């Protein structure tokens, strides 16, 4: 007999001294030539910025490995402070709070074997987090993209910004016009 799941709750407004950590946005090693920036805003049903959201990303390493690696929140043994990743292992995990303008940003490396980065969004007002995907490439063979009508499919495409091909834009619209496609994993 399976145990019944523990219900989800909102992350609330006051996670800011707890969940974000130093280097949470720096999934790529410093100065890595393949670094790409994934950035965007979280917007509500009125198109207003959501300043109290937290965005997490998860992805394979560039070689396609999906095991991740410990050390995203690596600690200084003397002070206990988070000093960030050492850069030799690719942890695959990013976490960043939105700013007052609803903006977030992670610097990462291209995921190996898939065209997307997994995204989870938590926010005050959101009783259960939401999953989506930031597709860095509009892959015609991708089953999820292929199953969506064009206007919805477009919400999953993290397009390079004009003139900056290594900066991909991925806005998350929680509700309303251009509402992002959100996923469930039954």
């Amino acid at each position, binding site marked *: 007999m399976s145990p*019944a799941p*523990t219900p989800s709750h909102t992350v609330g407004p*006051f996670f800011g001294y707890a969940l974000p950590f130093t280097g949470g946005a720096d999934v790529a090693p410093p100065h890595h030539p393949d670094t790409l920036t994934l950035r965007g805003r979280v917007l509500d049903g009125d198109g207003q910025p959501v300043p109290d959201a937290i965005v997490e990303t998860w992805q394979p390493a560039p070689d396609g490995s999906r095991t991740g690696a*410990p050390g995203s929140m690596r600690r200084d043994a003397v002070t206990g402070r988070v000093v960030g990743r050492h850069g030799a292992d690719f942890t695959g995990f990013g976490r960043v709070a939105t700013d007052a303008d609803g903006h977030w940003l992670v610097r990462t490396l291209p995921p190996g074997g898939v065209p997307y980065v*997994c995204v989870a969004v938590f926010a005050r007002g959101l009783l259960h987090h939401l999953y989506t995907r930031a597709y860095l490439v509009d892959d015609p063979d991708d089953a999820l993209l292929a199953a969506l009508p064009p206007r919805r499919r477009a919400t999953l495409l993290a397009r390079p910004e004009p003139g900056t091909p290594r900066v991909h834009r991925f806005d998350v619209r929680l*509700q309303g016009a251009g509402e992002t496609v959100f996923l469930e994993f039954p």
Partner: protein
Amino acid sequence: MTALPPDLTQSAIDTEIAKAQAAAHAGDHPPRDFPPYRGSALRHPTHPLIPVRDPEAVELTGPAFGVTDVTDLDRDLTRHHAGEPLGERITVTGRVLDRRGRPVRGQLVEIWQANASGRYAHQRDQHPAPLDPNFTGFGRCLTDDEGRYSFTTIRPGAYPWRNHTNAWRPAHIHFSLFGEAFTQRLVTQMYFPGDPLLPLDPILQSVTDPAARDRLVAAYDHGLSVPEWSLGYRWDIVLDGPAATWAENEEDDR
């Protein structure tokens, strides 16, 4: 600060809660659209979620954490400053299982909470209750081989919020958990047994199934209390969601 509508009383919210609960489908998780929780109005999607059944989905794997991510002190929130925090010292412990009942091993558990007066160490919390210079209210630990976690902290206070007139959150501890897959991610809140605010809280009541709500309330466990030191609470957690390591021929028995 904008004034709340004068008729937005607790009893008006109670009526809304009863109506929303009657209309909701029973489920383990709250509906994202729960009108009595005003903050949800503009922050829930209106399109149905798209189910992903691809066994190769990256979300069926997840990030790893280890001894470099956590220090031994992190689990004791009463030892993060030079002095002892004010309040009732408690230990909170339990097991983390996946929905097949297997222990979730070596995974990260994070908690955060208000201090004993009901105030968060966050500049946007303007509740005129005292900050405690000896309490920040954030802890981390890794689950052990049986899936156990354990924290020492102080019992948080209830605090007011502006969902409606005279709205108070019951005392709670925020929890964030990782399983072996990103699909098993859980952020939730743990409550204390016997709290008279539980039936009044639109956030707890957003879980529309009473049995599911009960799973968010810890049990006082006298065996966990440490003589002349702390009171013990037990709270077990079950993560929802599938994982890649579940063999394909094993039918999900939910």
